[in-house]
């Protein structure tokens, strides 16, 4: 007989809708919706043309969120391996050159009328597949047990890095570590992996990163020395050997190269410089709604997508920033409470994964906007303009709500202690 028969079967649709309605937890949905509204206000003053489209995506996102809640997560997890395989396949297809290109990177895949970013789906797939894989195991407490979860994450991660979409790829790393950690992996094992990983970074640097990514990272790590060096204004000691031949000996090609490098260096600093200026311009109380001086222009590049926080900070000032950070904190609190309330291991893992992903993405984005982290091209969940980001954010939120909505009938075992 098939194994299907011995498993408890779950209805595809809940018999009582009240489950679903109870599942729509205001502690989670409230802050998320408020953040979306804050984002819409910022978009309205920066790029009024995209507000309608963003609202459309919000509606779609909410529908996806509710849709995700309806079907019990265990039903969904049964289908996770085919889904994971599909995501891997579409990532391969994107790299194979079937995707659309934008901003040096191919991230979009078109299947019929539907265009999507496989990397956004990969975030969901990785959380789900880890939840599914880890839930009844105990071997992740050993080093050997870590191998499979790492492989499950590193394969899509490598594919995403190759797209190249470093920002999204790096989001998967904390998700993996935190989910393993929450599931009870040994802290020292994880630390060891981190140390090993850092040691192998130079290798990764040369093998995997595109030049522009290197540039972004370098621009962040070596602000002054690097720029002086690249603009040729540096102190003599920083100059690479072989350059002492004197100005007359320099060939025209070398001059051009130097100019090119200087320009790149300046471009890389440019983002952070402009975004911090815009944030600072807000002052204590902000310049007022639709009154920011850096909005509506290209003064801050990408100010309606990745750098949407600058618009908010400029118009609403430090007060607005505190409100926004408070909302982020409430959203994460809601997710943490959800993760705390559910009892079944897969549900816990789903909630922790959602918490980690949304939290990390928000923190990295905000940190990069205020100049505390390198520019990685990562949208701010619920605020940045963009359909894919909006959908995947609500999808992930839906997963967490789902975990709480469908409590298991019987579970004797106490997970992860």
């Amino acid at each position: 007989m098939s194994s299907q028969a011995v498993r408890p079967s779950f209805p595809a649709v809940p018999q009582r809708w009240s489950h679903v309605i109870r599942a729509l937890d205001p502690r989670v949905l409230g802050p998320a919706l408020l953040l979306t509204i804050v984002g819409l206000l910022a978009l309205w003053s920066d790029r009024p043309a995209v507000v309608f489209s963003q609202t459309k995506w919000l509606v779609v996102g909410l529908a996806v969120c509710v849709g995700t809640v309806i079907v019990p997560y265990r039903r969904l997890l049964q289908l996770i391996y085919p889904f994971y395989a599909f995501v891997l396949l579409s990532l391969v297809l994107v790299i194979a050159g079937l995707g659309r290109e934008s901003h040096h990177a191919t991230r979009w895949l078109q299947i019929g009328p539907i265009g999507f970013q496989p990397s956004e789906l990969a975030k969901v797939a990785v959380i789900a597949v880890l939840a599914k894989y880890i839930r009844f195991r105990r071997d992740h407490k050993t080093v050997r047990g870590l191998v499979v979860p790492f492989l499950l994450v590193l394969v899509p991660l490598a594919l995403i890095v190759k797209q190249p979409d470093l920002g999204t790829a790096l989001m998967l790393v904390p998700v993996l570590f935190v989910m393993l950690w929450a599931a009870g992996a040994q802290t020292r094992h994880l630390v060891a992996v981190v140390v090993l990983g850092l040691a192998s970074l130079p290798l990764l640097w040369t093998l995997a990163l595109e030049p522009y990514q290197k540039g972004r990272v370098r621009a962040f790590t070596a602000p002054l020395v690097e720029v002086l060096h690249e603009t040729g204004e540096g102190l003599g000691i920083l100059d690479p050997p072989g350059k002492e031949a004197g100005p007359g000996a320099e060939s025209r090609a070398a001059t051009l190269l130097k100019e090119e490098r200087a320009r790149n260096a300046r471009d890389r600093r440019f983002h952070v410089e402009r975004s911090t200026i815009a944030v600072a311009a807000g002052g204590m109380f902000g310049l007022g709604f639709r009154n920011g001086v850096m909005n509506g222009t290209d003064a801050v590049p990408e100010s309606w997508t990745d750098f949407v926080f600058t618009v908010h900070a400029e118009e609403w000032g430090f007060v607005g920033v505190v409100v926004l950070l408070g909302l982020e904190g409430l959203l994460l609190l809601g997710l943490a409470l959800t993760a705390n309330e559910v009892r079944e291991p897969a549900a816990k893992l789903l909630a922790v994964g959602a918490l980690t992903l949304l939290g990390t993405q928000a923190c990295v984005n905000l940190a990069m906007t205020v100049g505390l982290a390198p520019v990685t091209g990562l949208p701010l969940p619920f605020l940045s303009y963009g359909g894919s980001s909006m959908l995947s954010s609500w999808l992930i939120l839906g997963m967490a709500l789902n975990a709480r909505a469908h409590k298991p009938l019987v579970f004797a075992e106490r997970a992860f202690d």
Partner: protein
Amino acid sequence: MYEIRLRRLYIAFCVILCVIGARAFALQVLEVGPPEDEGGSWKSRAGRPQPFSVHPRRGEIFYADGTPMAWNVPGYGLEIEWDAIDDRIVPTVAEFRASIARRARYEAERDAARLAEQRTDRARTNLKTQQDARRAELAAWRAERVDDLGRLWPVQIVRKDKPLATRWECTICATQVKRRGVPDADCRECGALPSFEELPPPSIRDLAMLVWAGGDAPIEVLIARIQEALVLSMRRLERHPDWKSHAFLVDISAIASETIELRHEEFGGLTPMPRSSRRVDPDARQIAGGTRFPSADDVRRLTDPARRDAGWHVFDERDVLPSLVGNSLLEAVLDDELRGVPGEGNYVYRRERNFGREAIITREVADGPDLHTTIRPELQRLAMRLAASSPTGGAGAAVVLDVRDGALLAMGSASRDGMNHARTRIAPGSVYKLVTAIAVLDSGIAPAETVDCRKKGRFPNGVRYTCAHEHGDVGLHDAFVGSCNGYFAQRGATVGAQALTAAAIRLGFDTRPLVPALGEFAAWEPKSRSKHVLGRDGKLWAPDLALMGIGQSTVLASAVQVATAYARIAADGRLVTPFVLQRDRPLVAAIPIDPVLARWAPLIREAARGVVAYPEGSAFKIRELRDVGAAGKTGTAEVGRVRNEFLNNALFVGYAPHDTPRYCAIVVYERLPSGRYGAGAAGPQVAKLLAEAMRE
């Protein structure tokens, strides 16, 4: 363990969010401290975007062939901020005296050159007197400025016991500090050990070089001008207790000569601001009009939010003040369009490495569009010259229209009153007989039906008339050719006011201005001179109708309107209307045709040719008109009397070539003594205009 780890995870996120909040607090609140000059640093500026605007260039006006009619002459104003000024840029008394001497020498040379250009002795004497007076005045003014400088400079700028401040630049980070003596503290930006370089003092010469860009005058003149501006501003502001915080704008535009992209360049407290002036071709002043610097009323009008409803930009006061405002004619009527929309931006200051400020443009500047007129430059020059060549030196006007579509090709006027006499109302005299002729024909009176003309006579209905000749029994054609007052006076009384009015309106004599852009006066006007003009039944009295029939006293019309009327006949009834902007040019096929004018135009055109070509024609003696193949009509209108001499307006309106008319021209000389000058005074001038127009 799960719960503990979950709590730690959440706490970690909270810590990160707090760090981000702290960073935002540092950026938004801590660093936006006091501004630079109150002990803050350049960093504090980063949090204060400073708005600025970029002034649009005023659109220029062009002749039909693209030569400029009204154009911008780039120039500069100098904004002086004593608060920020570098002490060493203020000249000493000796420097100032030397610089003034150089300027005076240049002005003397220039005056001498102008004097040499004069042709007559009388003109030379006049100019010399003017120049001497002006030079004496300037010398006195400058002596006063030298005194001012001696008095003000030590007191106001620096205290006597302290040496001048010098600017020092950090050799590591290029931060500038202002100090007396070598700085001994660490650099406040980069913290480097004291390692400062003395900056060379800003010089007025460098500033002048930037603004001057090669003009007629030597650079010394501009330097002296800037120094004078400094002293002047010091003196003006002296009475304000907080005088150092005032900005003072001095116009130095007369000396700059070439446009350079100079937008907010600072120069040790002196900021040259683009402030261009406007020149108009003197021959086209009656068309382009003039501009002025804005008054308080202009500022109020241009900053009025109600402008938005009309689709115009609502200006900021700081954008109005450096701009020019149209004063009259095209410049005034199209002012809103010509002035363009200023650009807006903000200066932001880079946070890192003190790289200085950067301009963020939030609205691109939209320069005013150029306007192209239909005026032909050579023709316009000729029209101006002819208008000014009245035999008695009185007022005159000359207008040329394109017959096909009504384009105004030239409009000249000369007078002592400064009015445009091509647009003012004058008694048209016999040229107005065209209206009577159309009224006669439209009333169903056959052209061949005659009226008996004695040289002086009285008709059965009591109308008196005087005619130049004794025409005897005369029909419409011969009456028009010979300009018979007898015929037209009689017919005017017969057809009545209604028919005359209808015909006048068909021909374009309307109470509405014909060229709204030029603000032309409404012209045709049957005056009600006294109660006896209107009879008991409310109709015009017969004697007045008779006078109206020959274009005397009760009707007034402008030269432009008379030319329009004849152009409509020349165009076989097409209702051409004068216009002055290329963009208003109608499609010839789309101009409506008046059926009445179209029906009678051939007959009138034949008669108009007769005026010039037949021996009995009133303009037969003017051979020039025949030479250009013109047709037209003479006109004389009695307008007054001085002592024993009657004063007449002398007119000739004509078009050429007479068989396929292309151009229509009119010349008017006002108030010529009738004994010496007849209608013939204007005829040859029209021939010249038509010949020039056809030279194309």
